[in-house]
């Protein structure tokens, strides 16, 4: 069990919360919930509702998508001090992927409502969140362009899709 102070210190190190003040982190730290997932436990499944941000305290989580029955694509590995679920965090959209604990993993999870409330009260924080998400989007975009570098004809199609 981490104390509130421990959580604040921990969250301060997580990129998603960089823009928040200690006061704001204190609110969130008191609200987030600690959960231990045993190795191979599913944290969420494809189709589960979003609206929760997961921060890995220790352990490792694999983000997977089932392509064919029994065959999975590993989209990302999430380690300590990183987070996942942010794409479905703000609008409750159902997940299109599953998250599986690769090792025994301790996670802090945070529901969207308090974060939205904080963002409403603090316009600066909302901007900060936009920056965080833009960063993630840019990462995705650059990964896509990296993947398609060798295939110029695909780039055209992608460009049309993303602008």
């Amino acid at each position, binding site marked *: *069990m981490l104390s*509130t102070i*421990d959580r*604040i*210190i*921990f969250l*301060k190190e997580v990129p998603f919360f960089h823009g928040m003040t200690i006061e704001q982190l204190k609110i969130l730290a008191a609200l987030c919930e600690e*959960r*231990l*997932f045993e190795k191979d*436990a599913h*944290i*969420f*499944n494809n189709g589960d*509702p979003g609206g929760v941000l997961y921060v890995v305290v*220790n352990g490792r989580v*694999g983000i997977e*998508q089932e392509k*064919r029955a029994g*065959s*999975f*694509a*590993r*989209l990302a590995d999430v380690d*300590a001090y990183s987070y996942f679920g*942010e*794409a*479905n*965090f*703000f609008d409750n*959209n159902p997940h*299109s992927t599953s998250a599986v604990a690769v090792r*025994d993993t*301790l996670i802090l999870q945070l529901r969207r409502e308090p974060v*939205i409330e904080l*963002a*409403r*009260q*603090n*316009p600066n924080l909302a*901007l900060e*969140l*936009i920056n965080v*998400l*833009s960063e*993630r*989007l*840019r990462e*995705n*975009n650059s*990964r*896509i*362009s990296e*993947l398609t570098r060798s295939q*110029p004809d695909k780039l055209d199609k*992608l*460009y*049309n*899709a993303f*602008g």
Partner: protein
Amino acid sequence: MNWLNKILNVRSNEWSRLLFIAVILIFSNVGTTWAMNTAYAAFVKEVGAQSVIWVQLLSSILSILFMFVYTAFVDRVDNNRLFAYIIAIGVVIKLISITLAGVISPAWAFLGLYVLSMVWLAAWGAQFATYVNDLFDIQSAKRTWPIILAAASIGGITGGFTLQFLTTRLSPLSIIWIWVLTDVVAFGVVWVMPIFIKGHKKFSKTGVKSGKPFAQNEETSYLQGMKDGLGFTLQSGLLRWMAIGTLILMALMSLLEYYYNLILAPQFDDYAGFLGKLEGVSSIISLLILFFGIGWMTRSWGVKDTNLVYPTLNLLICGGVAGFPTALTASLAFITRKGLRSGFQETIDALLFNAVPLRIKGRARAFVGGMITPLGTLTGVFLLWVLGETIGLLRGAIALLALIYLVSAFVTRHQYTQALVKMLEEEDYSFLLSEGASNLSVADPATLSRLQKKLEESASHEMRIFMTQLIAQVGGAESLSILIPAIKAAPEPRTRASMLDVVSAAGLRGGKIRELYVDFLTDPDAQVRQAAASGLEQLLGAKDPWLQEQWLNMVGDSDSHISLYALQSLAGTGGFYKFEPATQKLDQLLQGDSIEDKRNAIDVLGMIAHPKSIERLLFFLEDVNDQIRLAAILDLEKLALPLGSALDTKILEKTQSLLHDPVARVRQAALQVIGKFKDKKVYPLLVSALADKNSQVCSTAVNILVAIGRDIAPMAQAELNSTNSQIHKMAAVVLSRINPRQFGSLIDKSVSNNLNNIYQNISLEQALTPYNKYYSVRVQLAALREGNDNLIDEILYLLSAIHDPQILNVIGESLHSDSPETRNLALEALESLTSPQTAALIASLFEPSMAPMQLLELGHGTLNVEQVNIVQALEKLFSSTNSRLFNLLALHVVGDIGADLPKTPNQQGDINRLLEALETPSGKVDIDPALPMEVRSLLEKALNNSDLLIQQAAQAALQKISGSRLGDVEDVVLKDREESKEISVIERISILKEVPFFRDIPISQLENLAMMCKEKKYRKGTRIFKTGDLGETLYIVVEGQVGIEQEKRGGATLLATLGNNSYFGEMSLFDKSPRSTSAVVLKDSFIMEVNRAPIFALTMQNPDLALELINVLSQRIRETSDRLADTARSRPRELHKLFDQFG
């Protein structure tokens, strides 16, 4: 009360629950101590010590059976209810025994009662823990658990020492009756508890888990759990020895119980009274051990050595009673069995289990507790059966078992160290995060040195912080000798800073740590200096004069963060204005040019909370910069107002002017400030805020008014006649929340009004849909839909004034659900709150299978809403008083579809006359007489409107109508654009709405965005931007053609050609990275530009826009992630696992 809170570490809001629990515990424990000892003494006296064998045999068999039954119920029934039922079962058991006592010999009836009650108490205890955890979150449970334990002990002690007083006056049967009474009281308290405790956490109904978004581990059955537990125990050395130790101890305890009864029972006439006293002494001893002994011992000797204390004491006592059987040694034997064991061994066992990996801990503990413990007792029973007759053998067995137990404890001690080391080697630190009610940590030298090694080896910043956190948490004062050199050795400044933060958060004290902080006050890195300073503050407290001196030095620090930190700290001391350099620095910041500095300095003003600083704050309320005003009013909002001085009037006066500030958050804060002055003078201001367009501000006003209560009612009632529908509705909300009985019906009226509007909007939608090829119609349709969404949200808000808001929240969410069952449940819930008609009207709006025509029929049937034709629709849209934007929009729609409208016969338009009109210099066009009468009068009204924008829009509409009659609309539009560089806001909205990026942003928000856009004409061949440019603009091609090129060494490849209504470069809005392509104009083009800076400035004023943008970004991240997922290789999960092992 405050000092009490501090001493006991309890929050004020926890007291009511805590007292309830204490009442239950004290009552139950007093009753239990009285009756159990009375019953026990009665049958031991009557039947003899051999009855103990029966008790042990029956109770251990029953307890195994009982666990089956209990685990079957525990997750299916509401925890609160289950606890009440268990208490009720206890009452039944007692009543049966009392009846039996009349039929068979009372001694045997008491024996039965005792055995059943033993099992019952096990259930009681298990459920009580769940019950308490339900009432408190884990953090507060951890803090309150010691108090709860103390209450239990107080019950035991009181019961024990008063028992003799009772037995001399009452018969055993009467004491059982008293026990029944205490249960009835406890039952009553548990039953009414949820009613009395307001705002308590909802009792969890584990049975109803629907919609819980978290993956639940599968609940394993009891048998499976036992099987797993056995497996783990056989595999792990530590668990094996702990199980053996438990087995021996339990066998020993059952021999001991028989033996001391054999000695003590004949010596005392009032055996029950004597047992009561022993029980009391036991409780005191265990309380002392729990509160003072154990913590001290584990801290100074470590867990593994503390583990030897009880076995050693036990051996001494057992040896004593075996060698010299007297009343004294037998009483000591009683105490070792009860008080010492519960004080020492149960706590230590819990700590020993920490060296078991977290995922198997639960099952392993359940196995040892639920299976090994009764087995041990059965072993004891078997031994008694063999040896019982020969006292000499029995005495030998007791001494021998106690000796073996001590030996097993030595083995366990060794195994424990090994298990810990193994876990650390596997990097499984989960055991260090001590859980639940235990405040004790594992401070073993072995663990610490292992952790120290890990810390020294860790290469990454994160790993170092993590290890520091663990060491500080586990090691207490010991950890300093490890951490201080580690912090000094950390190469990166941010690592040093974070490590210092961790150390100060751990609350470590002492001279060494002060030296450490002082050392780092001169660190070259500012972050580290700040961390050291805040560590010192934590250590010494803000009142320390030496520390204040340090802060004063830091005011002049080269780093602005540090000097700000120093200012803030000094502001908190209460004597800011004594510090001359600080005052100067603050002035310098407040008068400087940097917005950031100014904002921070204003926050410092707010912290000083001195009349002088508040006066200065007021000055900044008039600043032109949004951020400065916002900062100033937010600081004012935090102050405790009214001040009770002359300043109050000034505050009120200045704040009032902010009620119409463009920034929503400023208005909201201003309202909060004004609301704090509970003064009749400010009521009208608060009431008028009900009209605020921003829903947050509006609901703030509602809350403040409701808090004022009845005083405001007459004024709110007057507003019920307001022509402004929002004021009317919100006044109804305020009134019905103040007095639901009198004003509840107002809500029903408002709800049906809203429904009426919704269905009218649907009929408008129906009329407009055939024309949706026009952009303006599409915008109009979107606006209607968004308007309806808002009306629905408002209905839920209105209903929450007279019903539980939480329920309405759930209903709202369920209505949006994809599953028809969930929607049906929501419909039923709505029906119970409103009427079947209203509920059906609301729920149908969410029904995807409902065609618009069906909805209209429903609206017609229930609300008498008529389907309108297009002409009536246009009239309605134009006459709606909602906002100017919508009036303008209606005129645009008229312009677009005017030519398609049915023509009035005999009044064919004169084309020549129109052509002429187009060429007149004023550009004014007369109203086409061929238009339907209603539309003509609408246009006429618009032309005569006092609002210039509306006049212009009407003119534009007329031009468009005549233009399209000529079949030359393109020309007219282009000509229009040649002349004026700007296009109308409506058109911009429609253009933005076509861009997927902005599609989901409501029109009300897009309006703000649209005002920030600019249009530009680009000539063919112009390069809009080239690769590597730093862009912050999104471009939308209104008309024309643009090529996107990728530059290569030889030249450029055309990647895409973008025509009308396409857009490019939208990532630049959020991201300042350089462009990866270039854009060239292929045909003369008219392009709309959306810039980053003004949009972001706008989000400051309007957080809802920011949230919309966040949603848009989330959507984009999902799309790109899906795209990435498409490119990822898939393989069977087993392969992934293999990679995980090596990767």
